[in-house]
């Protein structure tokens, strides 16, 4: 018995280390490619967004895959983290001159703010179930986008000023600057994000989720997903664990948002709308619900895919849509899957024979 348990544990640990290995390998490969200059400029610009989308997909997988709740408003938390991160980074520009430390501060405070938003959203949301929960997360995402769309933030010698009306009502002292200006978003952001920071963030998030899954709270969360009533009867505090998964997922999304925003010089609230939430859900579902490695691969591939489809030009989003539908139809069809598996097996056998 103990032998079996030990073996299972070691398999999970191996799996976890493979995931860390993949990220580190990719980081090193892309660093080398970058330093030798073989990396195309369009792909190079995509590195940090890919990192942040991977973190988004991983964190959403915690909610959808491990906690079993469909969330359609994940971009809302990304947006909270992004703008909080921008405010932190911009307002500390003078007191903390070191860019990297400022980035870390922005990521941490962005994550905290998004985590708080996650708790506030989670308390009402998690009382609902199924499609109702999905629609309320969607509604929260839209509310966050809408409020940020009319939020004005400025900084001067006295500190931060907030307004929901316009730039003038911030009453900034001379020498103060506006950080957020409503629908225009954040302008003139100093680019702080680095590929290194992105890779480290992915590793941290992976570390957190993989350890959570194999811990007591993680097993409780999975038990609630599999049968809420049975879990409740066993004395598991359902709301506490659901909220834990939801809020930590929101916090990770916030860090991803801060990383994303500090990679550009301007960010608008409209960027983090319903379509972005859906995009991340697509990563999670295509990668396999509950499968972390799948999320990483799907997020990276699907972020690059529109770039790879560049030769189709105008048709590329159309092709993207068709690819998406085809993948869903094939992976959910037993007959097609057996054909694909058969083809894969035949291909491997052939390559092995040739290698011999």
């Amino acid at each position: 018995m103990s032998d079996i348990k030990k073996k299972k544990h070691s398999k999970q640990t191996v799996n976890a280390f493979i995931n860390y290995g993949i990220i580190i390998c990719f980081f090193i490969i892309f660093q080398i490619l970058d330093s030798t200059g073989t990396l195309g400029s369009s792909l190079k610009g995509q590195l940090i967004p890919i990192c942040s989308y991977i973190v988004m997909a991983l964190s959403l997988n915690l909610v959808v895959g491990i906690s079993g709740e469909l969330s359609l408003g994940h971009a809302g938390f990304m947006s909270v983290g992004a703008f909080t991160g921008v405010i932190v980074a911009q307002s500390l520009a003078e007191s903390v001159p070191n860019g990297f430390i400022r980035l870390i501060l922005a990521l941490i405070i962005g994550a905290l703010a998004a985590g708080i938003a996650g708790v506030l959203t989670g308390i009402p949301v998690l009382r609902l179930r199924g499609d109702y929960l999905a629609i309320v997360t969607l509604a929260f995402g839209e509310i966050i986008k809408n409020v940020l769309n009319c939020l004005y933030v400025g900084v001067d010698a006295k500190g931060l000023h907030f307004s929901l009306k316009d730039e003038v009502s911030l009453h900034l002292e001379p020498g103060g600057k506006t950080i957020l200006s409503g629908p225009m978003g954040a302008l003139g952001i100093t680019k702080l994000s680095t590929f290194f920071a992105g890779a480290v963030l992915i590793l941290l998030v992976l570390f957190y989720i993989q350890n959570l899954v194999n811990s007591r709270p993680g097993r409780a969360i999975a038990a609630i997903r599999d049968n809420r009533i049975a879990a409740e009867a066993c004395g598991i505090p359902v709301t506490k664990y659901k909220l834990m998964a939801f809020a930590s997922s929101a916090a990770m999304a916030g860090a991803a948002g801060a990383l994303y925003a500090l990679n550009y010089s301007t960010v608008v609230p409209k960027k983090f709308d319903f379509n972005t939430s859906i995009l991340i859900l697509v990563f999670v579902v295509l990668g396999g619900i509950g499968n972390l490695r799948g999320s990483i691969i799907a997020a990276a591939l699907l972020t690059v895919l529109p770039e790879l489809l560049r030769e189709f030009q105008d048709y590329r989003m159309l092709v993207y849509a068709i690819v998406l539908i085809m993948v869903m139809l094939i992976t959910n069809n037993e007959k097609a899957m057996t054909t694909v598996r058969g083809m894969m097996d035949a291909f491997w056998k052939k390559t092995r024979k040739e290698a011999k």
Partner: protein
Amino acid sequence: MLSYLINGISLGSVYAIIALGYTMVYGIAKMLNFAHGDVIMIGGYMAFCSTSYWGWPAVPSVLFSIFVCTILGIIIERLAYKPLREASSLAVLITAIGVSYFLQNAALLIWSSNPKAFPSMINLPNLVIGDIQISSVAIVTIAASIIIMIALTLFTSKTRLGKAMRAVSEDKGAAQLMGINVNATISMTFAIGSGLAAIAGVLLCSAYPTLMPTTGAMPGIKAFTAAVFGGIGSIPGAMLGGILLGIIEIFAKAYISTQLSDAIVFAVLIIVLIVKPTGLLGKKMPEKV
């Protein structure tokens, strides 16, 4: 005040017609058809093409738009959703999103992203009562939604096909045992929903006459919200939810803030769902242990 109310009911009627499509499809296929909003957009473009390019009069062009959308609904159901009948609801959801992307981008290729000025289909004089002026578009919209509502209620309660639809949404397996063709019934539901989407598209574009490939997206989300608001799966619920949502939106725009109106609409939805988790007219699901 009264004119805001009428505007609200008129906008709400459009939401209600779209929400009916969502709710019927959800009731029968237990899926969130995210492509529904884009069918509205296609309906709008069809009416636009037939009037502006081919010079058709209003009534035939609306009928043409309904026809095209109905066929489109059946094709989408056959190609994309039918193979996934046994799959998880998330898989179906992602496929629906794929279809939505497909329709938006196809429209982008055919009609480009430039907004098209939608021709006025409803050329009737505005109604003036005292010092209140009610636009003819609002009257036609409200009248259309009432007619649709009555027709749908009669259809589902009196006709054989309507009864079959209700039976399938109640219990698919039992309905099949009773000799109901489940696949045909689901196809028909999609056809009716898409036809309604075409009408909603024409009405929406008559009230807000700019047509873009993304025109359907936001009304789609809001109508979906309306369907949940009223209790998803319930036809009167969709109607009530749609109209209430429209009124709340117009009043929020008029009295609180134009920019925050969407946030207020969604906040009301959240409060309603917290108080009554199955929506206003939703059936209470007993919990099985």
